[in-house]
Structures are given as structure tokens and as C-alpha cells.
């Protein structure tokens, strides 16, 4: 086994994992706080990329600079979705029915994306992103490294918000004991809406970063939802650190199996890791940030 190649593979996995982490954190938060598996997550991500594309075309806004705007737009969409449909489903039916609701929402939102932007593949690339760095024999891909960096910054911001801000405390408290949080004066419905909004916002932001690295089309949503799923199950539910850990594991499993077993195998390995983790530790390595283990 070649040392540089191994190191290169590890670095590639790390960089890939950073993007998975950011793309999954919103999914993780909704799952942790509301107990809802949001099947519209992938569409949120793509919507972020498409809104970034529109902003770039219409206003000439650089994709990175568009992140705050995209975050806000997606937060409003996500919050509205929770207010109207998801809460209705949870009240009338069960948590399980929320899966069907978010699936239905994903079909609608995806068709809206196609109507607005067409089925074509698009790209948010900036040519400056295509730069390459050589560090001691290891090649680092500038675009992806930027993605990793942006992911880390955004994840850190979320972690700080959840732990140091009053509203973050309220989100955590609601996730753990919504009844007791209500007794403390927290309006849990508002927290749920806020959580959905923030999560959608993060999904949108990750969409920008994904769009800067890879071309995208409206039909990629299932891929990203599934990846978020795996990331959360590997890392842990509800916390940015869990998402980071899960994303990095996913990235490493993906690149290592691809390099040393064969480039067509990563999916098999990823899903086997997922199943294994579910059986051994259903809440992921870090467990559920809010509740005791299943």
C-alpha cells in the first residue's frame, strides 16, 4: 500500500465529508427536535442552489455572498411548510404520516423547480474555484476545500447558536421535553417552525456550496436526502457535531472503499455501514443529542 495514495484518499474523504456534513445538518436538526424525517430535505438543498443561480443571473451576486439571502428564503419556505402541513400531519395522524407529507411536498417542490428552471443540469461554478494546491505530494482540490471550509464555518455557527443563545437553549429544551419547555414559557409550535426554518436555511446554504462544486439538476434531491439520512444515522441525531462526524465517516467510507476495493463499490459499503450502525447504535455514534437512546 502506497503511503501518499492512502494519505491522498484520506484527505479526499475528509473534503467530501465536509460537504456531506453541512448538507445533512438541517435534516439532523429536524429529526432531533421534531422527530420528523424530512423527505423534502434534498429539494431544500437544490432550491438553495437554484436560488443562488437565479441571484447570480439576475443580480450578478457571487454564490458565496448569496448564502445569507438563500438562507432567509429557504427559512421562510421551511417554516411555512412546518406551520401548514407538517404540524397538521403530526396533530391529525402520527409522526409516520409526516413522512408521507414531506414526500408529497418534495414532489410538489421539485416540480416547481422544474417549472421555474427547467430540467437541465446547471452549475454555480466560479472559475476561481478550479485552482489546485499541492501539499507534500497530496493534491488538494480548491473547490472542495473551499466547500469544506465553508461547511465548518457554518456548522460552528449553528453549534454556537444552539449552545450559547437563548433561542438555541429553547430549541434544545423543546427537543428534550416539549411539555416542560412549555411550562418554562416556550411556545413549542414556534420553536418547531423556527427549527424547520433554520434547518431549511442550512440545507439551502449547503445547496450553494454543492452547486459551486458539482453541477446539479432538479432530480438530485433523492440522492441528497439519502445522504443526509446516512450521515445522521452514522454520526448522531440533532447536533452539528454529530452531523460533522457522520459526514466525515461517510466521506471516508466512500473514498477508501472506492480507492482500495473499487470505484463502483462505495454505495454498497455506505448502506452496509448504515444498516450495521442502525443495528448496533440506532442513534449514531454520538447518540441523540436530546433524548436517551432508543
Amino acid at each position, binding site marked *: 500500500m502506497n503511503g501518499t495514495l492512502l494519505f491522498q484518499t484520506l484527505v479526499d474523504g475528509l473534503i467530501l465529508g465536509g460537504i456531506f456534513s453541512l448538507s445533512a445538518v438541517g435534516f439532523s436538526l429536524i429529526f432531533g427536535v421534531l*422527530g420528523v*424525517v424530512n423527505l423534502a430535505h434534498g429539494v431544500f438543498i437544490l432550491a438553495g442552489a437554484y436560488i443562488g443561480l437565479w441571484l447570480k443571473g439576475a443580480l450578478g451576486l457571487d454564490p458565496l455572498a448569496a448564502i445569507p439571502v438563500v438562507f432567509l428564503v429557504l427559512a421562510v419556505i421551511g417554516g411555512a411548510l412546518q406551520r401548514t*402541513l407538517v404540524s*397538521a*400531519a403530526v396533530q*391529525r*395522524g*402520527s*409522526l*409516520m*404520516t409526516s*413522512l*408521507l*407529507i414531506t*414526500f*408529497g*411536498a*418534495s*414532489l*410538489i417542490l*421539485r*416540480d*416547481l423547480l*422544474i*417549472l421555474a428552471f427547467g430540467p437541465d443540469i446547471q452549475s454555480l461554478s466560479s472559475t476561481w474555484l478550479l485552482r489546485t494546491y499541492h501539499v507534500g505530494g497530496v493534491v488538494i482540490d480548491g473547490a472542495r476545500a473551499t466547500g469544506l471550509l465553508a461547511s465548518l464555518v457554518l456548522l460552528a455557527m449553528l453549534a454556537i447558536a444552539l449552545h450559547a443563545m437563548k433561542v438555541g437553549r429553547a430549541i434544545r429544551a423543546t427537543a428534550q421535553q416539549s411539555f416542560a419547555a412549555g411550562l418554562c414559557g416556550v411556545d413549542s409550535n414556534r420553536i418547531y417552525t423556527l427549527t424547520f426554518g433554520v434547518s431549511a436555511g442550512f440545507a439551502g446554504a449547503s445547496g450553494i456550496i454543492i452547486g459551486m462544486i458539482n453541477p446539479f439538476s432538479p432530480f438530485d434531491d*433523492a440522492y441528497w436526502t*439519502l445522504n443526509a*439520512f446516512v450521515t445522521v*444515522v452514522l454520526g448522531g441525531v440533532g447536533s452539528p457535531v454529530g452531523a460533522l462526524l457522520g459526514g466525515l465517516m461517510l466521506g471516508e467510507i466512500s473514498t477508501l472503499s472506492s480507492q482500495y476495493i473499487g470505484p*463502483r*463499490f462505495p*454505495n*454498497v459499503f455506505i*448502506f*452496509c455501514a*448504515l*444498516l450495521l450502525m*442502525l*443495528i448496533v447504535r*440506532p442513534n449514531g455514534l454520538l447518540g441523540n443529542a436530546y433524548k436517551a437512546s*432508543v
Partner: protein
Amino acid sequence: MDAFNGRIPAGIWGLSAVLLAAAVMLPFMLSPFQIRLAQQILLFGGMAVAWQMLGGFTNYWSFGHTAFFGLGAFAAGLLAQQLDPSLSVAVKLAIGTVFAIGLALVAALAIAIPVLNLRGIYFAIAMLAFAEILAEITKTFDAFHGTSGFPLPALLVPGLTKVQLFYFLFLLLFLTNIAVFVWLRRSRIGMGLTCIGQDEDTAAMLGIPTERYKLVAFVLSAVLTAIGGVLYGYSLGFISTGSVFRIDISLNLILYTMLGGIGTVAGPIIGAALMIVLTQVVLGNLLDLHMMLTGAVLIAMVILAPKGLMGLARKAWDRRRGAAEGRP
């Protein structure tokens, strides 16, 4: 809950007999397109009934039943290629079905032991992952031909067109599924499963062998779904991973069940009929918007009728009876 031990009322028997007679006559009166729709209603409605054997009683909602569907189709299809080409197709189908049943049995037992210990949403996710693994395996290893696909032999029976023939095969499976489901629901296992659905820990404390009941229901459900896959594969004549390992098949089974009314026999069938007709007839000619409308219908149904159409009907019935008897 009078369903467990009471006799099935004569009215239900009568209705069933009429429906069955109609079902047998139907393919000789409908156009091939209409028979194809009926085929799908029988196949997917019947599989939704099979899905209910576990998911209808308990919160163990499998989001990966397409795993067994695809397993059946691939097992029978790949076996048919290995068998002596001089064998008649009917024999190949029969051997393939037996093989698929065996394989589904083994797979279900193997996966059930770890997965049935997971509760609620985690079970759902684990099943989804299981389906993805099987799908990826068929695509990744060339021996399974999942990526490029492979043909299945064409089954012909003199006197029947291909659509009619598969209609009757699907009908047969459909009736089997219903019979097994009704038997299960009326048996001790059904009662146990219902208790598990209410509160699994309490059920276990009451001495209900929860593990065994869940396993029986899961395996039955898996095997019957695999047979559906075998027949579907033969009816298409050519399959690939993309035709049988489809997440939307898993989701549709749940959707049909929810739509019609979970826990009932008629519910999944009504749900399947409604959705298949809606998506393929009413919205069939739309090029752009049918996915969006499907999503909208799905959301509307879940919010407006959380207990499904059967739930609504029952409520309306109760209300009318209540009014007739002068109760509020």
C-alpha cells in the same frame, strides 16, 4: 374489536362472492389497457395488503418492501436463465416462485432478527437501507445483471392473451394475500400484534410472545411480496434494478394503505385503485404536472382523512346510524 373471533357476517361472504365473480369476468369485457390498470390494482393493492400484515397492526412500518419485491423478481429471473432452456415457461415460473419464496424467507429471517428490535422510525429507516443494499448489490456485481437488465421468458397459455393471463395470476396472488391477512387478523397472532401496536412493552409484560409474532407477520409479508415480484418480472418480460427496486414502490404500498384505511382489507385496495387510476388515467396524459398533483393529492388525503377513506366511511356510517337512533 369484534374482528378477532366473531363469525364473518353472511353479508360479507355474499359481497365477496359477487366481487370475485365480477373479477373473473372482468378481463373478458375490458380493453387491454383497462385490464392492465386492473392488473396493477390487484398486484400493488394486494402487496399493500401483504405490507399490512406487520405495518397494519403495529408501528413497524417497512419503508423498504421493494427489497422483497425486487428479490423475488431477480431470483426468479436469474434462475430462469440457468434452467434447462427446454423446460416449459410455466415450469420455470413455478420453480422460480419456489426459489424466490425460499430466498425471501431466508432474507426476511436474516434481516428480521436485528431489524425488528428497532422501534418506530428506526425500523422504517433500516428497511429502507436494506432495500438500498439489495438494489446496490444487484447493480454492482455483474453476475446479477441489474444495471443492464435481463429478459425473462415469455409465459403463454393458449386461449388467453398475455394481459389476461397475468391478470389472473395477479388475482390469484391477491386472493392469497387477502386470505392470509384475514386469517392473521382473526388469529391469536393478530390480536397479539394489535396489542403490540398499542404498547409493545405492556404487551410483552402481559406474556404475549412479541418477538415471535412480529417475526411471523414480517416473514409472511416478505414472502408474499416476493411472489408479487416474481409475477411482475414475468409480466414485464425484461427487468433491471431500476424496474423493481424502486423506492416509490415501497412508498406507494404505504400510501395506498393510508389512503384507503390502515388495518382494513378493503382500504389498501381502494387506495391502490384510486391512486393508480388517478396517476395513470386522470393525470396520465399530463407531461409536466402530474407529479405535483400526485403530491398534492397525497398531502390532501393525509391531512383531510388521516384514517383513510375507510375511516371516513365508518365515521359517516356511525353518524348516520347515530342520527337514526336519535343519538347526538
